[in-house]
């Protein structure tokens, strides 16, 4: 009927109508926002992980730059949501560009180790520089500011639905760009690198340069997700920069299916709901999350969409 575009359209319809049906199934709008934000982060990570084949375990660093970028801007510089978001994204992009130059020649587990270490650097800065960042207590005392569009003001602070649609707009733009890139010749070079780096090199693709580009794009959109996350919570938490946050993004991508475009979003939805549920039931939610990781890796590595794709193919 709608052919290949069918699933995409279904997803968008669900997302646009979310505030209306989510309450009906027992959820609440800001949970939806949370899924969308973390889903964006996981999808951005997956641009690098699932489509370029590069394992990064330190994306929380750029997520965190977005988080603190927007928080610090609104609190100390300009009480404007949009400017705060811009600062967060630019900070993340610049950091990613510079660090990328340093590490792009590395591969495999070595690359992963280095991304973990760099992730820790930013966590450390957020944690230690408490005069500026609030240290372990996080950065509070600020909140998302209503957006003044000239002809009207959008009250994203008081109105959960309004904030959700802001998130959705950002999500849509980011996702559309990533989808377009993946369908383009450039995107295909990334697939080539994932499939067989040596062959890609011997077709004339400058592999390091393309990996760097994929890395920067991925981190940039993760920073965007970070800004939205901080705005959602009206709070900047150093925990958002820790290695466990990085791991969460990866497991969302794996759980939903790394080779499928929408996979990480589904993974994020499952993970967020599960985490919400488990942490309300027991103080030992950390063990359950850990167990969850172990079970997914051992028994469910292809992820939800991966399994569905398998079943669909003859």
């Amino acid at each position, binding site marked *: 009927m709608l052919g290949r575009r069918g699933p995409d359209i279904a997803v968008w319809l669900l997302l646009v109508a979310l505030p209306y049906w989510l309450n009906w199934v027992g959820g609440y709008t800001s949970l939806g926002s949370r899924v969308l934000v973390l889903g964006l982060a996981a999808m951005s990570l997956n641009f690098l992980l699932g489509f370029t084949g590069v394992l990064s375990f330190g994306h929380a660093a750029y997520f965190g730059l977005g988080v603190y970028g927007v928080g610090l801007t609104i609190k100390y510089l300009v009480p404007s949501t949009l400017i705060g978001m811009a600062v967060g994204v630019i900070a993340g992009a610049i950091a990613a560009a510079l660090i990328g130059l340093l590490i792009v020649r590395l591969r495999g587990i070595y690359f992963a180790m280095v991304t973990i270490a760099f992730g820790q650097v930013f966590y450390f800065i957020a944690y230690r520089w408490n005069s500026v960042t609030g240290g372990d207590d996080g950065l509070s005392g600020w909140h998302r500011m209503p957006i003044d569009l000239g002809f009207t003001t959008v009250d994203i602070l008081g109105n959960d639905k309004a904030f959700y649609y802001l998130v959705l707009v950002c999500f849509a733009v980011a996702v559309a760009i990533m989808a377009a890139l993946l369908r*383009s010749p*450039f*995107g*295909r070079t990334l697939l*080539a690198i994932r499939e067989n780096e*040596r*062959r890609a090199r011997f*077709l*004339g693709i400058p592999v390091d340069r393309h990996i760097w580009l994929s890395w920067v794009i991925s981190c940039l959109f993760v920073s965007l997700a970070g800004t939205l996350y901080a705005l959602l919570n009206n709070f900047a938490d150093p925990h958002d920069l820790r290695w466990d946050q990085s791991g969460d993004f990866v497991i969302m991508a794996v759980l939903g299916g790394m080779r499928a475009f929408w996979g990480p979003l589904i993974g994020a939805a499952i993970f967020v709901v599960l985490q919400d549920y488990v942490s309300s039931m027991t103080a030992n939610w950390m063990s359950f999350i850990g167990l969850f990781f172990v079970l997914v890796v051992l028994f469910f590595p292809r992820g939800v969409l991966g399994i569905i794709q398998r079943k669909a193919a003859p």
Partner: protein
Amino acid sequence: MSLLEVENVSRRFGSLIAVRDVSMSVEDGELRAVIGPNGAGKTTFFNLISGFLAPTSGRILFDEQDITNLLPARRVWRGIARTFQVTEVFPDLTVRENLRIAVEVAAGYRLRPWISRHADAEISTRVTDLSDKGGLADKEDRPVGELSHGDQRATEIMMALALNPRLLLLDEPTAGMGDQETYNITRLIRQLHQDHKLSIVLIEHDMRVVFHLADRIMVLAEGAMLAEGTPQEIAANEAVQAAYLGEAA
């Protein structure tokens, strides 16, 4: 001036001399075979020409330009394409997708975030053309990883051809193939050589293929050049016979 000039290249790995002072000169449109017993250094020699390794001494000139230390990707841009002993393709992507990537890169589209419908159609046509020539038309929407060995090799060769190379390096194209597949690949190579006037250098163990295709043959043994000449000259060469038979004895 010849297309490819390899001047006295050597390659050492510590105390092991894999390639010892080898020179080779390939003309435009020539089909040259490199043969020799196992461990003679043939693949290492290819690695030097394609840029996978740098020579410890010697020079390599392509189109009269010194490419001795040029990176592999850059050599591809200059017009050298290569296939590998173990077929290197993109296994989870379809034949069409594999070919498409090669065509797009060759067309200079590697960084393009978007292409026009017109360009898209042009690329598509070229992909179909390559797929047909390689005998892959009926399998082009299947993941390459699922195809037979011969078809995977054909895909790899067509990908190399998509790059519009001046020089094609084929490393044991018929390795591990049965008679029928060997025949198909040999015919494909011959056709490409004739239709596109490419220079081809190929490493082969199968003597039927070598004598069927080659204009000239170079024999390597223990890293050094043992003999060089036309197929008839090589067939009659006693030192060559000894190198092969001496191995078996």
